[in-house]
């Protein structure tokens, strides 16, 4: 009984102590608020005092613009992310599978799994169809069907398919005896909108034009660069002004190129323009001597971004690229291990005489590609050996180079991608426990790394020794307040590696807590965008590579930002697009291409009348759609079969198919089983979208 009372007492005591803290927190917030009128009052009282001495123009300038920056940044952020979340789930329909009775199932991707499992893209709810029965995929100029070792087998036009076979428009595909007619998609870039509870929110973003957003970014960068040029050492000011002008000009040029030659949303590039602008601001304040190099890296990044997008437009070509890049990476890793130079403890640099590069940065691109696989491979061979081997080689090399941060990046990305590929938790658990043990060994073996773990969580105890960088970052962050002290007015730039590892500190000191936060939120947004786009990727190649790239961005951000803020041990990796560093910048752009490639949507300017043009444009570019419009028309004529009437009726009534006696009488030869099958199939494929495509014409 006493024990019980004791435990109750302890409980109430601990609750009381938690509750007791709340007034203290409120108190500190109140005290903060209390300070505001204090300095307002004081400012009014002693305006004469502030104006007594002669004041330089830059003082007035900073006084005003530091309030504008966070506002402009917030607007830019909202204006960029809202359009990117527009359009709900909209995707083209590449073809239809028609079952006997006229019901059509949309083929929405270039790779579609077919089976009884709810996770299949095309759900066939028949007991004799395997859970994962087959994959219908487009590539190398035609459609293919791959049998996933199903029990019932796959037949095309009555002929059994051994592993993979070709499928033509109009062929009959038979899965364990259930027949489907493969029909072409629509000639329009069909966009099917799903109703969403957040539609009202997304509609707000419809009026945001990318041109105005670009203008705001340019405004921000113009004001920002003037602020910096006025604040930094005069000998660099001219160089900085020159760099910023070229950068802004190149932004405009690239924007108009995109506007003219692509049909996709441009806001993704705009967000990254903003980040790269912050990158130049940081470099100008911390290492103005490297401004030209950094500008060159950004431009080179833009070029590699465009090239990779063109190369992977066809996933088949992307797969070839994968093997080439993996081979190059192996060479790079070997070169790095033999010729590498040590900087800040890690031997991950190669000096080419005129320039130094970090080869492992470039390996990231190959790494992301190495993880990709087509859906049929993904569902048949769960063999990860090649990928595991390559990852192991990369991580092993990084440990030899003593680059803990980058090896963590590779490892976590490996986990994310490996799970996407295998879906098998046990494999992953085995690998990660092995790796955790390895990491433990590494940490205990290298006192250099161990000291970073020692400081972790206790940086104020070691404020001037091993916690030096973190405490200075926190001091800088606190000194900046919410709106910052103005570019070039910080002291953190004087600390080694502040423009790479501690870049969050520079951002919050000079540009304020709000802008620093938004910079990180942009990276978070990239991950959500990749996840959002994935549902409608035409190929698993894009889905996996986009997720791999986003994982690299996120884990790098976690290590960089949290390392400098003492939420994690400091590891010395770069913040994507923001940290100073040429290799890192080029590679970030290259990785961004994978996220961009997974976006299939057409921006509003291209919808309606423009939509068809966009499709044509694709053809003009020498890139052929799976469905040839000519074929389509032929197919349509031949295959009239009064489907349209049926679907119009269904679209209106939305009753369980087949609802009316008229329809039933037309298909009265069907037996009960087939009717049940139709209903189930309609349900499983969800929201009647399979039929609506035809109905809306």
């Amino acid at each position, binding site marked *: 009984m006493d024990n019980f009372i004791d435990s109750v007492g302890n409980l109430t005591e601990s609750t009381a102590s938690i509750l007791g803290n709340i007034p203290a*927190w409120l108190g500190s*917030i109140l*005290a*903060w608020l*209390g*300070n*505001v*009128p*204090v*300095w307002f*009052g*004081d*400012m009014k009282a002693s305006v004469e005092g*502030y104006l007594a*001495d002669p*004041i330089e123009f830059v003082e007035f300038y900073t006084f005003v613009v*530091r309030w504008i920056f966070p506002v402009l940044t917030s607007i830019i952020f909202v204006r960029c992310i809202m359009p990117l979340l527009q359009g709900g789930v909209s995707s083209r329909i590449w073809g239809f599978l028609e079952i006997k009775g006229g019901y059509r199932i949309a083929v*929405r991707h270039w790779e579609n*799994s077919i089976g009884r499992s709810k*996770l299949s*893209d095309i759900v066939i709810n028949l007991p004799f169809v395997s859970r994962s029965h087959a994959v219908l995929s487009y590539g190398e100029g035609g459609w293919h069907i791959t049998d996933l070792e199903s029990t019932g087998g796959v037949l095309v036009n009555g002929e059994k398919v051994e592993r993979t076979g070709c499928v033509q428009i109009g062929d009959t595909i038979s899965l364990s005896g259930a027949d489907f007619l493969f029909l072409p998609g629509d000639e329009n870039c069909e966009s099917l909108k799903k109703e969403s509870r957040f539609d009202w929110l997304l509609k707000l973003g419809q009026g945001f034009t990318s041109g105005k957003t670009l203008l705001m970014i340019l405004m921000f960068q113009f004001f920002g660069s003037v602020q910096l040029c006025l604040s930094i050492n005069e000998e660099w000011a001219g160089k900085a002004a020159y760099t910023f002008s070229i950068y802004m000009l190149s932004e405009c040029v690239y924007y108009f190129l995109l506007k003219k030659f692509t049909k996709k949303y441009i806001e993704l590039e705009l967000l990254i323009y903003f980040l790269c602008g912050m990158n130049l601001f940081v470099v100008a304040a911390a290492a103005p001597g490297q401004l030209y190099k950094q500008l060159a890296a950004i431009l080179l990044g833009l070029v590699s971004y465009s090239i990779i997008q063109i190369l992977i437009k066809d996933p088949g070509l992307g797969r070839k690229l994968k093997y080439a890049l993996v081979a190059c990476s192996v060479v790079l890793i070997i070169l790095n291990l033999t010729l590498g130079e040590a900087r800040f403890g890690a031997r991950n640099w190669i000096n080419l005489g005129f320039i130094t590069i970090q080869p492992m940065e470039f390996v990231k691109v190959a790494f992301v590609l190495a993880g990709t696989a087509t*859906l049929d491979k*993904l569902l048949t061979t769960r063999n990860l050996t090649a990928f595991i081997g390559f990852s192991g080689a990369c991580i092993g090399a990084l440990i030899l180079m003593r680059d803990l941060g980058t090896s963590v990046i590779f490892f976590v990305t490996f*986990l*994310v991608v490996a*799970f996407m590929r295998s879906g098998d938790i046990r494999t992953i658990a085995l690998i990660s426990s092995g790796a955790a043990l390895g990491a433990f060994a590494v940490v205990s073996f290298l006192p250099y790394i161990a000291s970073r773990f020692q400081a972790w969580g206790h940086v104020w105890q070691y*404020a001037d020794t091993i916690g030096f960088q973190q405490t*200075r970052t926190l*001091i800088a*962050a*606190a*000194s*900046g*307040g*919410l*709106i*910052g*002290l103005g570019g070039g007015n910080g*002291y953190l730039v004087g600390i080694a590696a502040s423009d790479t590892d501690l870049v969050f500190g520079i951002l919050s*000191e000079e540009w*304020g*807590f709000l802008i620093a*936060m938004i910079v*990180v*939120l942009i990276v978070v947004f990239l*991950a959500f965008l990749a*996840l959002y786009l*994935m*549902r*409608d*990727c035409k190929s*698993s190649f894009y*889905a*996996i590579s986009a*997720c791999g790239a*986003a994982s690299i961005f*996120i884990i790098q951000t976690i290590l960089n*930002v*949290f390392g400098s*803020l003492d939420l994690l041990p400091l590891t010395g990796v770069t913040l994507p697009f923001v940290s100073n560093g040429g290799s890192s910048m080029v590679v970030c752009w290259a990785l961004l291409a994978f996220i961009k490639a997974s976006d299939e949507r057409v921006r509003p300017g291209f919808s309606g009348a423009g939509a068809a043009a966009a499709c044509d444009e694709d053809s003009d570019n020498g890139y052929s759609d799976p469905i040839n419009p000519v074929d389509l028309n032929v197919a349509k004529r031949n295959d009239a079969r009064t489907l349209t009437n049926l679907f119009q009726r269904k679209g209106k009534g939305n009753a369980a198919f087949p609802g009316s006696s008229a329809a039933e009488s037309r298909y009265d030869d069907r037996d009960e089983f087939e009717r049940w099958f139709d209903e189930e199939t309609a349900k499983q494929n969800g929201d009647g979208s399979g039929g609506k495509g035809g109905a809306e014409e």
Partner: protein
Amino acid sequence: MKILTKRAFGLLLLALILLLGLSVFTFRYVKDARAWAQYPTNKHLFQNGQLLTTGEIQDRNGEVLYRAEQGVQSYHSSDTVRKALMHTTGDSYGNVATSVQVAFGDRLSGWGPVNGAYRFNDKSFGTDVTLTLDAELCAEAFQALKGRKGAVGVYNYKTGEILCMVSSPSFDPEHHPDVAANPEKYDGAYLNRLISAAYTPGSIFKLVTAAAAIDKMPDYDSKVFHCEGEKLIDGDKVTCPSPHGEVTLKQALAVSCNIAFAEISLELGGQTIQSYAEKAGFNANLEVDGIKAARGKISTADAKGGDLAWAGIGQYNDTANPLTFMAYMGSIANQGVRVNPWFIDQNSSLLKLLPDFGVKKKRILTRETAETLKTLMRNNVTEEYGEKNYKELELCAKSGTAEVGGDKAPHAWFAGFMNREDCPLAFVVIVENGGSGSKVAGAVAAKVLKAAEKKLTSD
């Protein structure tokens, strides 16, 4: 693609970890940014570890106690005032944790959550901090301590304003001595003993036991205790300096009879003593303008026999924080309501617009108990301590001579209040190893209170 979307939760998890970490950082930022900014290597606010440019610290009469201009620190012109208020202003190097320079460094230096450490044309947005302290009164108290270690506190028990807050040993912050090289002379010099120390209370604790007795013993008024100079309780000997014979509670408090209070403690029991001590502020940290005072400790709930007897007379393992005890004195004077002491004047803050905002009030004794205690404490002065020593002060008080063991002299305590409408002041004086409470600490109190009375009535 559906299956891949499901399997992509790894990325989702990473993104959520990033968001979670950002929230943790934001929380820490809101909570601690003001402390981070105050780290002395922050070049925005400090130069060579000293505040760069600040507003002024002023006492209640506008005397400038401290200011910094472009890294040059200046204090009050009188060295006695400088020493007396060193613990309040701070020592330029941030050694005194409870000082204004440390605890209110953000307001002095102009750091704010929105503006950060922004300075316009090299001028900070630092603001003045006005104290409720009276510099002259503090100097008077510091001199009255005559270099002995200890503390003096005086506050207005109706409004909570602290008028005098002095701790000794101190030093001149303008000529910072080598404190580490003189450990004897500067023993705990960085400590504001009024706020941050806790001592054995000795007989002043009898005011807590007496409050319990008044409430819980129906016959407290008439009951007579027999004192023969010593008494054995469960094998422990409780002693008085000399036999007091037959005493009532009133007499026992006046002559500070240990045996009478030992019997009262045993009769009330450990639980009651502990609960009354906790009402008086023991086992809790009193907050003065957000600065936490040290915690006085009492644990009699399970004490028995001799331990309980000694605990009831302020020995055993009891400790008392001078400031908290002063607030207890204030509550007796203020009809049982304790007004929390404070010393930073919120003169230019919005908080001032709300009446009594930030001044915490708490009833800790019933009005009747407080009145009874008041008459008993008044009786102490008139019967024992000598009204002539405290002429016209209408003093109500209790002395304490706390045995500290070994061959060291006892701590001298004197605590109480002036029962005057025009001078509602409560006070506490502690002189470490000073000897007799009423003689040593009482003399300091008399000097300070007379000066305070003169100041309040001449206005």
